[in-house]
């Protein structure tokens, strides 16, 4: 813990951390004096070519907590989320300035293996995107990538992941059926199981329930509460009620005068929704704009 603290030289970051601490979980703060930070952006700027999409983002993601990123459309929520596992590498001319630390190591530093980053930081997408293969193979896809081919081991991983994503009981008798044959809500939980199968530390969720019906949405939200016991979760959502319901921390983003996304306010979810310090946050969460 202390080395994390000492390595942070930027005063802005420290201030932010203090702010987080003041609202952080009481027990953690009392025991260790500092909440465990899993990921952290330091003065993060993000560019699509010449266009600056994110400006000066300083955000700390607490370990084994759910952090929600909210904000109006086009404010850079998804861009930020995708920066956390370098999915933006795929976009031509996308560029990052500043740092994103995962366990205190810069994921954009030269020499960092992007494959390793993506194994440690998994992702669940807006629309369920099962692969055109069986349910079993969908979950086993990740482990196989990392060289696990023993049937017994794979069976174990598949069952464990499907149990974790609360899908096992529904699909255990049809593991050989196509992943595309199950319902949308089940497909999304399959995608969560697929992400969990490589045992990530962090799971990024990009509006994971926006394409699902209310019942499936509730299932996903319940699931997130179980998952946070073992994983750090970052969720982007358009649905403020959802953010209020599921998350421990909330980050509110807006575009600034230059149309770049900025972090307006970050804090514990109840505080953001009931007692926001920033006027823009207040207007947004009370539904007066956006």
């Amino acid at each position, binding site marked *: 813990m202390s080395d994390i603290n000492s390595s942070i030289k930027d005063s802005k970051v420290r201030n932010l951390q203090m702010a987080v601490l003041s609202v952080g979980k009481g027990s953690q703060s009392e025991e260790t004096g500092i909440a465990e930070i899993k990921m952290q952006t330091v003065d993060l700027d993000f560019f699509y070519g010449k266009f600056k999409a994110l400006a000066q983002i300083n955000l700390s993601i607490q370990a084994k907590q759910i952090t929600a990123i909210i904000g109006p459309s086009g404010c850079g929520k998804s861009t930020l989320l995708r920066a956390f*596992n370098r*999915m933006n590498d*795929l976009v031509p001319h996308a560029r990052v300035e500043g740092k994103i630390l995962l366990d205190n190591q810069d994921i954009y530093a030269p020499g960092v293996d*992007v*494959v*390793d*980053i*993506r*194994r440690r930081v*998994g*992702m669940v*997408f*807006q*629309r369920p*995107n*099962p*692969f*055109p*293969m069986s349910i079993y193979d969908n979950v086993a*896809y*990740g482990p196989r*990538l*990392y060289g696990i081919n023993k049937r017994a081991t794979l069976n174990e991983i598949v069952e464990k992941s499907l149990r974790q994503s609360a899908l096992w009981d529904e699909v255990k008798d049809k593991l050989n059926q*196509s992943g*595309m*044959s199950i319902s949308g809500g089940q497909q999304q939980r399959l*995608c969560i199981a*697929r*992400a969990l199968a*490589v045992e990530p530390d962090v799971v990024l969720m990009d509006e994971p329930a926006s394409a699902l019906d209310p019942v499936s949405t509730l299932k996903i939200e319940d699931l997130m509460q179980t998952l946070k016991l073992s994983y750090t979760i970052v969720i982007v959502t358009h649905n403020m009620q959802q953010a209020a319901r599921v998350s421990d921390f909330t980050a509110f983003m807006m575009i600034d005068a230059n149309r770049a996304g900025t972090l307006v306010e970050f804090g514990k979810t109840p505080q953001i929704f009931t007692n926001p310090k920033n006027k823009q946050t207040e207007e947004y969460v009370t539904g007066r704009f956006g």
Partner: protein
Amino acid sequence: MNASIAEQPLQIVHRINPRNRYKRRMLANQLMLGLAGFLTLLALVPLFWIIGYVILKGGQYINLNFFIKLPTPLGVPGGGVLHSIEGTLILTVLAGLFSIPPGLLAAFYVAYNPNTALGTAVRFGTDVLSGVPSIVIGIFCYALVVKPAGHYSALAGGVALAILMLPTIIRTTEEMIKLVPHTMREGSLALGAPEWKTSLKVTLPAAISGIVTGFLLALARASGETAPLLFTALGNDRFEIGRLVQGGLRNGQSLPTIFYNILQQPVDSLPLTLYKYTQQPFPERVNQAWAVALVLMGLVFATNLMARIYVNYRTSHR
């Protein structure tokens, strides 16, 4: 405010009479419908005319011997076109082998790098290539393969047909790859899979039914081509795989050597035989040409049917 508008009585500006010019509208409708139906039938006439005429002319000359015998000398009854059926088979397989692997890879490249210099060049190249007359491709392959080797061969014919198929394969495969949702690819990449593995394990299986259909249609198209074969495969009415294999084995050759030798032979194909037979002044040859036309049409029809059945099978087993 809304309520006040709702309370106002609706002002009738112009009373529309539903029976206004009713007869005229009905008549115009009937007329256009009839015209559309008639022209649709007219468009189908050539298709059914061709099929019917070919069946009428060639159907009676088709029998078992037609498929399993080599041509007999003129005046000797019987005989068939085994040589060109086997030749067509060999040429099609060769053309597929030469065109599908590079076509598939090029399609992946173009689909994922559409705006790079090479991507643009490939796309432009395929457009131009698909417009090149097939006989020009034949001459090109004559200079490329036949001239250096010093003889006509199945190999040269296969290369010519492959070049002919390449643009179709690249374009249809590219379209099918582009139909695969981008999010599916991202799902794989987000797990840390490299791009090539994502393409192989996720994108290709997702697009495979469309891609295979494209292959089959391109093969069907190529197997009906004559012009590129005139300067490459030439024709060979003594060509018989069974006899060549037996002969090779008797001489103690290994199977790969035998197959290599077969590929070095000139071969016939159905369209080539058709072209040659129709030019002969002998009625029995001309009759056989009609029968060949029927077999060729049946082959193309079967390939198309296979493509459709395959797609239906894939879509119902998802």
